[in-house]
């Protein structure tokens, strides 16, 4: 059984909670005691309906203020797949939460109200999904019951969304007309929309092909930890030296000729140990240990890759950055800590090239700072060389986080475009 992670975004009135509630309920993932508890709380609060957001809005402040503070993770499974939903609130700190939830998602679910059509929020969702490199986008055109199950309305919205999505980097775009409230096309195909020839949402989630989303071409192995048993009593283990880490791209096999960066020394892979013993191949996101034929100097933060397929190596990087803190803005001249793969360094913000309006995609080149929830293109200079690929080619070797050196808080998320100066 495979795991699919998907991100949803939106507010209460577009029917997102109803939709998620239905997926959870119909897959028997809401438990009786949870349902009783939220029914009781909804009643006490005087809600007109059972508010499924209360399933995870368990923090005191959330219940008191009736808001969702943070990304909520929900879990359900069908006989075909296990699902993790990163459910992000539509209002407060919307961008920061959506970016967080989207960073690990295979698929993004966007809800459009059939009566309202494509609105600013739908465009924003689609843009952030494409910026974060989510390979699959599913647009659920909801509340079809309120437009008399009209095929014409569905086609209009689909065409409008398509024309906007053409400007974005979206590879797989699917449209499903649904009524979350009545369950049409959520789990079962709807009898009210015989003109719709596609599958139900759940069927789509179960069947969407995600295995080829990972980069299986560029072999990348950021070294995480060096395993040296140094067991004096056990001679077999005495000389064991393994490089543990999570494969970030490509396929590694014993016998492969590899190079370790930054040293540039070449060697071959002698063996690959997985958690379940030696394996013939390792690919993302397997956590394995590589054993090398020669005693080369490799430590945490180094990168092992194929000799003829290397990442960029450099200290000057152009990236899209989402700023995530209220404690100060991002400004040129600022110094921050940076974590990229398993490597920490420091970075100087050399230049803010533009701030992007995520509703219109307009680039404001006169901007001199990024505030909370703003996204812009920056030029960075790092203290140590990074071994990176463009984010759109590899999410694992193309992403980084920025950390404030005084507060230690994570303040920015970055997606690498490439080495500085190359567009």
């Amino acid at each position, binding site marked *: 059984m*495979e795991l699919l992670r998907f991100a949803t975004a939106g507010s209460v009135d577009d029917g997102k909670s109803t939709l998620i509630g239905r997926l959870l309920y119909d897959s028997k993932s809401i*438990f*009786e005691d949870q349902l009783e508890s939220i029914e009781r709380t909804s009643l006490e609060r005087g809600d007109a309906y059972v508010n499924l957001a209360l399933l*995870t809005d368990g923090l005191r402040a959330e219940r008191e203020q009736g808001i969702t503070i943070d990304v909520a993770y929900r879990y359900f499974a069908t006989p075909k797949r296990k699902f993790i939903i990163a459910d992000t609130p539509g209002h407060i700190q919307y961008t*920061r939460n959506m970016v967080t939830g989207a960073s690990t998602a295979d698929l993004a679910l966007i809800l459009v109200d059939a009566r309202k059509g494509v609105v600013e929020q739908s465009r924003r969702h689609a843009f952030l999904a494409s910026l974060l490199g989510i390979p699959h986008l599913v647009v659920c055109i909801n509340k079809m019951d309120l437009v008399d199950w009209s095929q014409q309305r569905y086609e209009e919205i689909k065409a409008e969304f398509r024309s906007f999505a053409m400007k974005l980097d979206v590879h797989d775009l699917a449209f499903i007309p649904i009524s979350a409230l009545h369950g049409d096309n959520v789990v079962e195909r709807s009898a009210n929309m015989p003109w719709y020839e596609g599958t139900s949402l759940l069927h789509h989630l179960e069947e969407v092909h995600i295995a*080829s989303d990972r980069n299986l071409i560029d072999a990348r192995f950021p070294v995480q930890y060096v395993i040296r048993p140094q067991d004096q009593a056990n001679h077999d*283990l005495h000389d064991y030296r393994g490089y543990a*880490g999570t494969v970030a791209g490509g396929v590694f096999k014993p016998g492969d000729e590899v190079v370790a960066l930054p040293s540039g020394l070449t060697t071959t892979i002698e063996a690959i140990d997985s958690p379940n013993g030696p394996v013939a*191949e390792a690919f993302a996101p397997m956590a394995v240990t590589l054993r090398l034929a020669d005693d080369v100097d490799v430590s945490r933060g180094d990168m092992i890759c194929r000799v003829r397929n290397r990442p960029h190596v450099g200290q000057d990087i152009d990236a899209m950055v989402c700023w995530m803190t209220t404690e100060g803005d991002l400004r040129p001249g600022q110094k921050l800590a940076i974590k990229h793969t398993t490597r920490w360094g420091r970075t100087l913000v050399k230049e803010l090239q533009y701030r992007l309006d995520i509703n219109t995609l307009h680039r404001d080149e006169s901007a001199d700072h990024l505030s909370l929830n703003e996204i812009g293109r920056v030029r960075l200079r790092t203290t140590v060389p990074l071994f990176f690929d463009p984010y759109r080619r590899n999410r694992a070797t193309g992403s980084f986080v920025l950390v404030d050196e005084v507060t230690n808080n*994570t303040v920015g998320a970055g997606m690498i475009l490439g080495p500085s100066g190359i567009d």
Partner: protein
Amino acid sequence: MTTPTTSAPPTPHYQLTHLQTLEAEAIHIIREVAAEFERPVLLFSGGKDSAVMLHLAVKAFAPAKVPFPVMHVDTGHNFPEVIEFRDRRVAELGLRLIVASVQEAIDAGKVVEETGPGASRNRLQTVPLLEAIEENGFDAVFGGARRDEEKARAKERVFSFRDEFGQWDPKNQRPELWNLYNGRHRKGEHIRVFPLSNWTELDVWQYVAAEGIELPSIYFAHTRRVFQRDGMWLAESPWVTRREGEEVEERMVRFRTVGDATCTGAIESTATTVEQIIDEVAATRITERGATRADDRISEAGMEDRKREGYF
């Protein structure tokens, strides 16, 4: 549903099963901690989640030994089967065990024992836990908590920051993106780390089955002297005062969670094997904490309040 296995070879399409994906994620997290922190410790109660976590730690560093000690916060009200299991596992793996004792904290007057029929030492664990973290200078503490088990936990980070008082501030958590965990902290502060964040109760049991992980016997159906309180079966023990009308009877039960004997309820069950438990868990309509934890029933925010103070 068939039981998935982690040891099955990857398919030709380079796919991992959900258990292989969760296993890889957990091992990545555990290695990240070993690499970035000076003094990590793994909380090991002998319960199923901590047994799975310890199993993952062993795999993460094999063939080397687990490079950190384990710690148990001992309420003094434990099921003997669990303590026996704890000690045996620690000895088998050659690990150092630190026991933080609630009884000692009571004897030293640092905490006051609750009294009456609802008395429990559950909440009292926070003081010896934080003291042990401080005394030993631990900067990272692995816990087996899962986001699916309780709503205050649903929003907690994998790397969860604690200030110098051990407090958790749910409104002020660090954003956590991709698999880039931020463990930076000042001296005196620490990070709680939850490698099983994305596992469900069913995932844990499927993994226990696939890996043949040993668990304390009380997880499996057995005959026990129990009495009913608030719809739960509590075990007869020297530490629980029965209220009037609470009659002890013998029942076939098993425990879904393992905690302090005074607040951990059993469920009626005939499941004596892991496979039977998986069938039972897959069919259950009540969450594990809802079914078995009196401490979570105190209030809607019972867990959040304890966690803010520094609880697991």
